C-alpha cells in the first residue's frame, strides 16, 4: 500500500522518491580525460601565491617572515591552539615547494567579491626539496592509533574537503558519540560537465583512495566505546556511470584488499548527482534533514581526492601541498589534468589564452569567474575552464512554465523564490525554503525565459544574512545598553540604601549625644548666619558632617 502510494507520487512527479536533476546532452569530459596527467613543478624564480585562508573557518597564524628560506612541506602558518574553541575550524598552511618568502601581502584571490586577501608569496628556488622537518613522521601503523591522534594528523596536514567545500576534514571526522556514523560515503560522482580531475584520480590512484577510506573507517571505529560497538560500518564509493574506467580501476584495486566494508556503487549520470545531499539520497535513500548535517543520519561524506590526501598524510606524512586540476574548455591550448603545487598562478597553467576568453574556476554550473589570471590555484580549485565570453541572452518575464521546479534537486519552487526575491519579500522566500537551495543552477539552465535565477537566490540569501547580522548587532547593542542602564540603577539604589542604613545606624546608636551636638551646631550656625550671611552654605555643610 505504501509502496503503491510512493509509486503514485513518483509518477505524478511529487518529489518523494526522485528529486529533479538535469542531464546535459554533452558533458565535455572527453576533452580533458584522455591525456595522461602532467606533473607541474615550479622552476627557479617562479612566484607562488599562497592565500593564508584556503578553507572555511578561521585564518591560521603566520610562522614565517619575509626573507625566510622554507623547505617544501614546511608549515607556513599554524592553527591557533591558544584559543581551542576557535582552533577547531582552522587548518595550517604549508609551503608547496622550497624557496624564499619574498613578502606577505594582500593579493587577489578567488572569491565572488573580487577582494584581496593575505597571501604568503614564495619564490621557488627550483630545488623542490623537503627539509629535515618537511615531512611529518609516517604513521603506517595507524590501526594502533586512536582517532584523536589521527584527526590531529589530518588537521596538521592541512586537509580540507577537496570537492570544493574546503571544510576542514578533521572536523567532519569528529563524530558525536551519541550518534555513531555507520556509513562513510566517498564521493567520486563528479557530476559537473567538463571537470575530470576526480575521474583521472580514480583511474590513477585508486589504491590510495581506498586506503584513505580505510583510514577514515578506522577513525570512525576507534571513536566508539569498544564494549558498545555493535554497528557494522560500511563505505560506499559513489561513482557516476559515465566513468567506466574509474569504476573498473577502483574495483580492481578493491579486489586484493578483501575488505567487505568497501563497495563501489555506480550512480546514474545526471547533474547534480555529486551534490552531497543528492549522493546520500541516491546511495542510501536517506535525506539529510533541513538545517542538519549528514552525521545526524549516521552518514559522513568525503570526496575521493580528500580520501587520497588523508592516506598520504597519515601513511606517508605528506601535507596537502598539491592537487589535481582540470584544464579544459575551448580556450585552453593543452587541455587535460595537471598535478599542480598549490599557489601557482592560473595564468602559468594555461599559457596563452584568447583575449575574449572567460576564466572560470570550477565548473560551468557552479564555478566562479576569475577577474585575473594572477589568481593562484588553491585547495578548492578543481578545474579551470576557459571558454569564449558570450553575452547572456536578455531575460524575459517568468512564464510560470514550471521547468525549473521540475528540475530542482532540492524540490523547491524556483519560480516562487525568484518572485519573492525580486519583490524583496524575504520572509516569504525563507518560508519557501530558500536556504535549502544548493545553488546548483539547474533551474537557470532550463529556464526558457533565460532568467539568471541563481543570482536572485544569492542576492536574497546575502540580504537575509546581513539583515540577521544587523539584527543580532542591534540586539547586542540593546542588551548592552540595558545592562549598562541596570548597572547604573543598581549603583544608585545601593548608594541610597547605604546612606539610609548609615543614617539609621547613627541615629539609633547615639541619638542623645547627637541631638545635643546638632542643637549646639544649629546654635552656632545661627550665630554665624547672623554674623555673616555669605558663609551660610559652608556652615550648613559643617552641620551635616557628623551625620554623614
Amino acid at each position, binding site marked *: 500500500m505504501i509502496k503503491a502510494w510512493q509509486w503514485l507520487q513518483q509518477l*505524478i*512527479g*511529487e*518529489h*518523494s522518491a526522485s528529486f529533479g536533476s*538535469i542531464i*546535459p*546532452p554533452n558533458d565535455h569530459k572527453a576533452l580533458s580525460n584522455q591525456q595522461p596527467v602532467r606533473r607541474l613543478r615550479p622552476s627557479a624564480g617562479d612566484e607562488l601565491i599562497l592565500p593564508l585562508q584556503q578553507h572555511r573557518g578561521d585564518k591560521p597564524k603566520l610562522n614565517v617572515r619575509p626573507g625566510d628560506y622554507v623547505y617544501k612541506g614546511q608549515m607556513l602558518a599554524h592553527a591557533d591552539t591558544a584559543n581551542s574553541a576557535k582552533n577547531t575550524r582552522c587548518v595550517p598552511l604549508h609551503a608547496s615547494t622550497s624557496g624564499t618568502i619574498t613578502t606577505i601581502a594582500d593579493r587577489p584571490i578567488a572569491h565572488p567579491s573580487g577582494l584581496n586577501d593575505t597571501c604568503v608569496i614564495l619564490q621557488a628556488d627550483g630545488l623542490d626539496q623537503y627539509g629535515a622537518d618537511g615531512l611529518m613522521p609516517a604513521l603506517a601503523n595507524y590501526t594502533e592509533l586512536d582517532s584523536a591522534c589521527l584527526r590531529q594528523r589530518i588537521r596538521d596536514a592541512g586537509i580540507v574537503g577537496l570537492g570544493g567545500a574546503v571544510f576542514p576534514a578533521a572536523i567532519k571526522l569528529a563524530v558525536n558519540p551519541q550518534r555513531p556514523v555507520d556509513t562513510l560515503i566517498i564521493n567520486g560522482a563528479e557530476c559537473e*560537465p567538463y571537470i575530470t580531475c576526480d575521474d583521472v584520480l580514480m583511474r590513477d590512484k585508486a589504491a590510495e583512495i581506498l586506503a584513505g577510506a580505510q583510514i577514515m573507517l578506522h577513525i570512525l571505529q576507534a571513536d566508539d566505546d569498544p564494549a558498545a560497538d555493535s554497528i557494522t560500518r560500511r563505505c560506499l564509493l559513489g561513482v557516476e556511470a559515465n566513468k567506466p574506467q574509474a569504476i573498473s580501476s577502483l574495483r580492481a584495486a578493491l579486489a586484493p584488499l578483501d575488505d567487505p566494508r568497501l563497495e563501489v556503487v555506480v550512480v546514474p549520470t545526471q547533474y547534480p548527482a555529486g551534490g552531497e*545531499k543528492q549522493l546520500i539520497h541516491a546511495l542510501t535513500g536517506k*535525506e*539529510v*534533514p*533541513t*538545517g*542538519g548535517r549528514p552525521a545526524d543520519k549516521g552518514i559522513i561524506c568525503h570526496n575521493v581526492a580528500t580520501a587520497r590526501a588523508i592516506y598520504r598524510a597519515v601513511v606517508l606524512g605528506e601535507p596537502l601541498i598539491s592537487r589535481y586540476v582540470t584544464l579544459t574548455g575551448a580556450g585552453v591550448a593543452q587541455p587535460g589534468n595537471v598535478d599542480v603545487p598549490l599557489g601557482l598562478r592560473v595564468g602559468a597553467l594555461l599559457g596563452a589564452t584568447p583575449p575574449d576568453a*572567460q576564466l*572560470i574556476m*570550477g565548473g*560551468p*554550473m*557552479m*564555478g*566562479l*569567474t576569475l*577577474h585575473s589570471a594572477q589568481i593562484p590555484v588553491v585547495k578548492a580549485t578543481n578545474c579551470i575552464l576557459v*571558454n569564449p*565570453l558570450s*553575452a*547572456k*541572452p*536578455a531575460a*524575459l*518575464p517568468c*512564464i*510560470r*512554465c*514550471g*521547468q525549473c*521546479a*521540475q528540475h530542482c*534537486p*532540492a*524540490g523547491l*519552487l524556483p*519560480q516562487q523564490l525568484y518572485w519573492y526575491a525580486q519583490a524583496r519579500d524575504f520572509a516569504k522566500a525563507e518560508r*519557501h*525554503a530558500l536556504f*535549502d537551495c544548493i545553488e546548483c*543552477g539547474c533551474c*537557470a*539552465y*532550463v*529556464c*526558457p*525565459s*533565460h532568467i*539568471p535565477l*541563481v543570482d536572485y537566490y*544569492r542576492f536574497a540569501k546575502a540580504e537575509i544574512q546581513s539583515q540577521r547580522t544587523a539584527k543580532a548587532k542591534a540586539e547586542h547593542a540593546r542588551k548592552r545598553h540595558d545592562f549598562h542602564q541596570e548597572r547604573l540603577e543598581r549603583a544608585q539604589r545601593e548608594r541610597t540604601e547605604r546612606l539610609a542604613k548609615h543614617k539609621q545606624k547613627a541615629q539609633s546608636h547615639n541619638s542623645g549625644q547627637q541631638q545635643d551636638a546638632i542643637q549646639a551646631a544649629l546654635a552656632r550656625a545661627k550665630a554665624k548666619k547672623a554674623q555673616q550671611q555669605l558663609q551660610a552654605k559652608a556652615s550648613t555643610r559643617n552641620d551635616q558632617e557628623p551625620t554623614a
Partner: protein
Amino acid sequence: MNVTPPTAPYLRQANQSVDGLMRQVIYALLPGTLVMLWYFGWGIVTNLVMGIGFALLLEASMLRLRAKALSLFLQDYSVVVTAWLLALALPAFAPWWLLLIAMVFAVVIAKHLYGGLGQNPFNPAMVGYAAVLVSFPLEMTRWVAPLDLSFMHISLSESLQAVGATLNQTRWDAITLATPLDTVKTALFSGHTLPLSEAQHLLSAAGLSTEMINLAFLAGGLWLWYRRVISWHIPLALLLALTLSAAVFWLWDAQHYPSPLFHLLSGGTMLTAFFIATDPVSASTTPVGKLLYAAGIGLFTYLIRTWGAYPDAFAFAVIIMNMAVPLLDAYTRPRVYGH
C-alpha cells in the same frame, strides 16, 4: 565587449527559449489547422490572418504604451499563439469586428492590463472568446457547414463579403448549421431523446468534421508532449475528468446523454486539453495542482455543456479554474528535500 560580469551557471540548455517553445506550439497546431482549412477553407484563412494581424498591432501598441522593448517581446511569439488559438476557436468566416473585439479583450485587457507576458491570471485567448460569446451569441453559434475541400465551394470574394459584414447584415444562413454539441443540447433541453443515434452522430457530416479536427489536434498535442513542451498532467487529467463525468450520465441514461467518446471528439475538447489549458502562465505549476486544475476544467466543461446556456464550455471552465490557481498552487507545494 560590453557584458555584465557573468555568474554561474554559464551553461544553458540549447534551444530552450520562450520563442522556441511558442514556435513549437505553433508547429503542433498545424495538423489541426490544416484539417480545419480542409473543411472551412477561406473562413479559417481570414480568421487567422486578420486575428494575428490585429493581435500583433495591439501587442505592439501596448508595448509602446508601456515603454517596453518592442523587438524583444514581439519576438517571443506568445501573442501569435494566443491569436492563433483564438482564431481557431471562433467560428470560421468570423466578421472582422468580431475578431477585433475578441483580440482587444485577449491582448489588451487579459494580457497587458494585467502586466503583460507572464503576469496574466486568466488565459487571454479564453477571455477574448468568452467576451464575444456573451456579447454576440448569435454570431458565435453560427458555424458554416463544413464542406470537404471548402476552398472549391466558397470563393475568396464570397468569403471577404461575409467577413466584411456588419452586425445586422445577414450572412448566408442557408449553409450555416448548428454544431453537434448544439443539436444535442437543444434536444436535451426540449426533453427529447437524442435526435440521432450515437453511430449516426459520429458519422454525420458535422460529426465527422469535428472528429477529424479533434483527432488532428490530439496528434499535434501528443507531439508537444513528446517534445516535453507540455507535461502529461493537464491533458490527461482534463480528458479523464470529462470522460468520467460523461460516462456516469451516459451509463445512467444513454437516451439523453451522449457517450464519453462523443464528448472527447466534439467541440474544442482536444484543442483545450493540449493547447489552451496547458498555457503555463495561467495554469497551476505544481504537479498535483496541475492535475486538480485540469480535472476541474474537464468537470466544469461537462456541466456547462450539458446544462449551461452555451454550446461549448471550455472558455468558462478554463476561466473558472484560472481563478482557483493561486489557491491550488499554495496548497499543493511539493515537498522540499529534507523537510
